């Protein structure tokens, strides 16, 4: 913890919260992450390193949701066809709906280069890269999807819709069309309709996550470009860029459609009016940053051991609570993401990491900690966006309004102070305040 206290900037008296410094910083328009140049460099670098694999994730997720759909043995679902590599991102390129990134709408050139050469740095057929696991670790994206699916109670209107009769009818139409000339699968569908329906719901969540990341990738690319030009004066600037981005895209429709032999079947039509903010952003942050699921090998799944909470709301295994040191351990999907990010680190971060801890040897852990900082920043952006959307501006003259803001911030930070299951010890918000946490 830093020694200097952050004084409150509003007219309210100082907060009594254990993380009072952070509360005051949020009330002043800042982030949960302290505003230092090192922090800014770390988070922007990781945004860029995250965005390149994310470019692959969203394309492949949409491919899986739209084309692979209910394939029983999807051995090639990670072999992204050219059509999806060329799929134009709606938020980049000249013909964007709302242009976040100045760059191109098709797949990022660094991604294409990695896909052709891999870590081995040789051009061998894609199948060998895939079998050697020298590829983008799509398993992480699917794990995020599964987390969102498992915690689907965080959804707004989409969640009850997935249980509705209308959804069931849409799904039924699509399933029948998909397995049209396949009597075995159709027979199985008659026997176990709920199974296929649940698989269809999982496919819907895949589409939701793909649509979510379709936005985040160009946003992160743009942030990296702005930083390279010197456009960000500090961490709050970067956070505010994200907040504006969240608002700009809040109304983006969330839908799920499946392409069956050239014909598009709407399972969740755009006309239902589901929005990006409520159906993708908030559930994603909650399911992936806060909750996810306990990683095998790190927690005992034994019910008598009482290590895994009975209430889903108490899950605390997301990036904000993560212990970054066990890297490469089997069963911890975020380490797959770290492996991906390792390939796309900007040079200034590679040089920076060489100076600390074990230099090149533990770059994976160092970038993992930087990534944690960057996700604290994203969470702060979401918290500030929530405040702007549902509560009052930071410079509101009415003290009642400011108090409501403070209650909101304190309520958010209370999630890091819960002593149940040692959540307060697991939360890393205290550690990211210290620059020496690497």
């Amino acid at each position, binding site marked *: 913890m830093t020694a200097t206290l952050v004084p409150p900037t509003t007219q309210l008296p100082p907060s009594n919260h254990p993380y009072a410094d952070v509360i005051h910083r949020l009330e002043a328009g800042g982030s949960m992450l302290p505003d230092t140049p090192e922090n800014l460099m770390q988070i922007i670098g990781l945004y860029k390193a995250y965005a390149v694999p994310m470019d692959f994730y969203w394309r492949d997720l949409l491919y899986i949701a739209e084309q692979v759909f209910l394939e029983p043995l999807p051995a090639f679902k990670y072999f992204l066809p050219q059509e999806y590599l060329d799929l134009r991102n709606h938020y980049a390129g000249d013909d964007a709906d709302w242009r976040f990134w100045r760059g191109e709408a098709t797949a990022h050139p660094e991604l294409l280069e990695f896909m052709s050469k891999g870590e081995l740095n040789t051009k061998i057929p894609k199948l060998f890269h895939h079998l050697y696991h020298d590829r983008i670790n799509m398993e992480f994206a699917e794990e995020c999807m599964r987390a969102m699916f498992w915690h689907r109670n965080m959804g707004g209107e989409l969640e009850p819709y997935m249980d509705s009769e209308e959804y069931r009818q849409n799904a039924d139409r699509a399933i029948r069309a998909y397995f049209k000339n396949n009597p075995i699968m159709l027979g199985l569908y008659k026997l176990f309709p709920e199974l296929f329906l649940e698989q269809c719901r999982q496919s819907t969540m895949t589409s939701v996550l793909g649509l979510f990341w379709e936005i985040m990738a160009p946003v992160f690319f743009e942030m990296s470009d702005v930083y390279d030009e010197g456009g960000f004066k500090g961490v709050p600037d970067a956070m505010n860029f994200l907040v504006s981005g969240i608002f700009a895209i809040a109304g983006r429709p969330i839908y799920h459609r499946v392409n069956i032999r050239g014909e598009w079947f709407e399972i969740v039509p755009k006309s239902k009016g589901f929005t990006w903010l409520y159906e993708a952003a908030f559930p994603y942050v909650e399911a992936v940053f806060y909750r996810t699921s306990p990683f095998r090998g*790190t927690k005992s799944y034994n019910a008598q051991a009482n290590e895994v909470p009975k209430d889903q709301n108490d899950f605390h295994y997301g990036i904000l609570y993560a*212990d*970054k*040191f*066990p*890297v*490469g351990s089997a069963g911890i999907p975020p380490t797959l993401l770290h492996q991906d990010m390792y390939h796309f680190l900007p040079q200034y971060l590679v040089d920076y990491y060489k100076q600390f*801890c*074990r230099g090149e*040897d*533990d770059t*994976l*852990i160092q970038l993992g900690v930087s990534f944690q900082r960057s996700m604290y920043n994203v969470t702060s952006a979401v918290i500030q966006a929530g405040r702007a959307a549902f509560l009052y501006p930071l410079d509101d003259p009415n003290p009642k309004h400011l108090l409501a803001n403070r209650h909101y911030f304190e309520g958010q930070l209370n999630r890091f102070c819960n002593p149940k299951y040692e959540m307060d010890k697991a939360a*890393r918000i205290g*550690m990211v305040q210290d620059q020496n*946490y*690497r």
Partner: protein
Amino acid sequence: MLSALIWLPVIGALAITLLPQSQSKKGAIIVASAILILDVLLLKQFDTNLAAFQLSENLPWLENIGLNYSLGVDGLSLPLVALNGLLTWLIICFCENQIKERFKLFQVLMLLIHAGVSGAMLSTNTLLFVLFYELVLIPLYLIIAVWGGLQRSYAAMKFLIFTAVSGILILAGFLALGWLTANPTPIFDYSTLQTLSLPLEVQITLLVVLLLGFSIKAPFVPFHSWLPDTYVESATPTVMMLGGIVAKLGTYGLFRFCVGLFPDAWALLAPYIAIWAGLGVLYGAMVAISQKDIKRMVAYSSIGHMSYILLAAAAATPLSLIGGIGQMVSHGLVLALLFYLVGVIEEKVGTRDLDLLNGLLNPLRGLPTTSALLILGGMASAGIPGLVGFIAEFLVFQGTFTKFPIPTIFSIIGTGLTAVYFVILLNRTCFGKLDNATAYYPKVSGLEQLPALILTGLIIFLGVQPVWLVKWSEKATVKIAEQSESKLLVSQVLNESLTSPLIKN
């Protein structure tokens, strides 16, 4: 050849004192390597088919008191001499970074200790043995007191007192033995003493005196109280030497002088000694289980494992004696490995407390190779097949079970308990998660890994090819066992007050 083994380190040590500080390490490495090469040559030259002393050298020195410079090597001393050479070489070449200052003094003292131990193991004259035995004492006291933990001066003094008392007892025993068999000069020549015989009561008295002396050195419970403090407070290379080879002086003396010289008295006392050994194993294991400091845990493990050798000596069958010698070598290798690794952990992590250590197997931020070797070392100590510990312990149990089943069962239980405390150690230290707030440990370099890798390699090799461990000692142990059997038979047949025609009433 044997004199070279003793005097080369001494001359080398003197030469190093003349070198400047920066060159002293090079000089020491040259001397230690030369000694190691001599050891290999000795192994080559040794004829495994002979039971008697080989490559003997005999120089009359102080004839009137019977102290002659006579050296010889047989199947009992050869493995230990080789072990001595190996450990000294490893310590001198690789363990410098645990010694922060006064390297030259350290190299000199280490070489002197080596010379003393070699001399003691190679001498076939009991007074010469005592001379070299005492010679080891002062350099060892200095080495413990100068480099080590906070309580090292206390530990060194305790060590000095205990070992001095042990030396006095041994000296008294040998002097008495010499005068009682005097002809008319006291006899201190080992081969001669082997052929003589004394009244049983006299034998028992002398045996008890010598046994006490060697029990303090080895040490065996309850004379062990100097060991935990000394081992814990010493620096890593010191304790590798202490536990690895210097402690073996006690067990070597046990085999050579107690079993070898007093077979009938030994046979009489053997059942009690066997039970003593069994209880010692259990004691060492149980105290080790309760330790919170990993170095102290390994130290108590050492006490437990030494008692296997006592058990083997008590049974005095050929198989158990081979097992005992094997256990001396095995224990030396495993203990050196364990203390080295514990030393690395203490240096890199900064603590030895079991409650604080956690997660060292972490591949990027932990000490993965060190932890992996620690697991192997723990397995070796617990007697897992495939490693040298199993060979030694199995031979001991096989050899002692027919004679003393109950103590053997105690010892087998002790082996099981060894697994218990090693699992505790490994579970806490290696597995689990690193503490995010403190786990910023420096890397262990390749050179720092090397001694551990060499020791592990040997442990695995000897575990898989045990013939290389036991083939040196087979003939010698058969001879000792035969003597014990024949003397037992003789003493049973004739009446107890058998006197030698050589002793004038």
